[in-house]
């Protein structure tokens, strides 16, 4: 247990030193607003696994999206992605910055260099 962490009741008691009549439901709503805002920053780092589907390019990250264990993801900002290789190890994969360059080619196929085969 942390050295000192405070409960909602303790937060409420501190608030009521100045605002004695404030309803606890309203304070709880404000605390939840604050938690949403704090979640935008480095306050809770989580890792989750997702399964891929054949020929599926897009995967949902909405608030209700779930990982492969059916847990709600609640993603705010993804900063690192790994992909499982043929040995079952997770390897860091790069984020594509200039996605338009690769996905919308109007010239012929011969205008592109195929990557080296391994």
């Amino acid at each position, binding site marked *: 247990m942390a050295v000192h962490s*405070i409960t909602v009741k303790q937060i409420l008691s501190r608030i009521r030193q100045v605002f004695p009549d404030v309803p606890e439901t309203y304070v*709880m709503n404000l605390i939840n607003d604050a938690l949403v805002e704090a979640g935008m920053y480095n306050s809770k780092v989580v890792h989750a696994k997702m*399964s*891929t589907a054949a020929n599926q390019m897009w995967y949902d990250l909405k608030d209700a999206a779930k990982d492969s264990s059916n847990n709600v993801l*609640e993603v705010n900002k*993804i900063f690192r*992605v790994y992909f499982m290789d043929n040995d079952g190890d997770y390897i860091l994969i790069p984020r594509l910055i200039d996605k338009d360059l690769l996905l919308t080619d109007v010239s012929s196929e011969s205008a592109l260099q195929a990557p080296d085969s391994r």
Partner: protein
Amino acid sequence: MASSIKYPENSCRWFIEGDSFCLITNVDSEGDANTTARKNWKAIQEAVTDGILLYYYAEPNGVSSLSDVPDIDNSLHLALVDYVKKCLYMDSAGLAADPNASTVATNMSMLHKQKWDEAVKRFGMKKRDKTGGMRSILPHSLT
């Protein structure tokens, strides 16, 4: 089940578009390079259970009862008090009939807003960084 991709760092890319995560690869379901250069990067062509591992900032769990402890580091708990006071002072500024009382409440609201911003936005990451010790840089070899 492992994938058939031998070098994901070369064969896979990801990006975010709105609320969607996109994964593309330049190999087929056998792990061989796509032969059509123009459509080299495509959706992954195999189903891989637990194939993607994401690291991300997640939303803290909300509170619903008085006994709940906020789901963030305890160094931020006092900042929650500032956030709530910021809002309540702004409410009272709006309700005050006396302009002087309204001004005082607005100033108090700004004070708590500054404390909240400082705790969470400006110095939050630095204060709660779990990395300790000296910072050292490994230089590139010049030979």
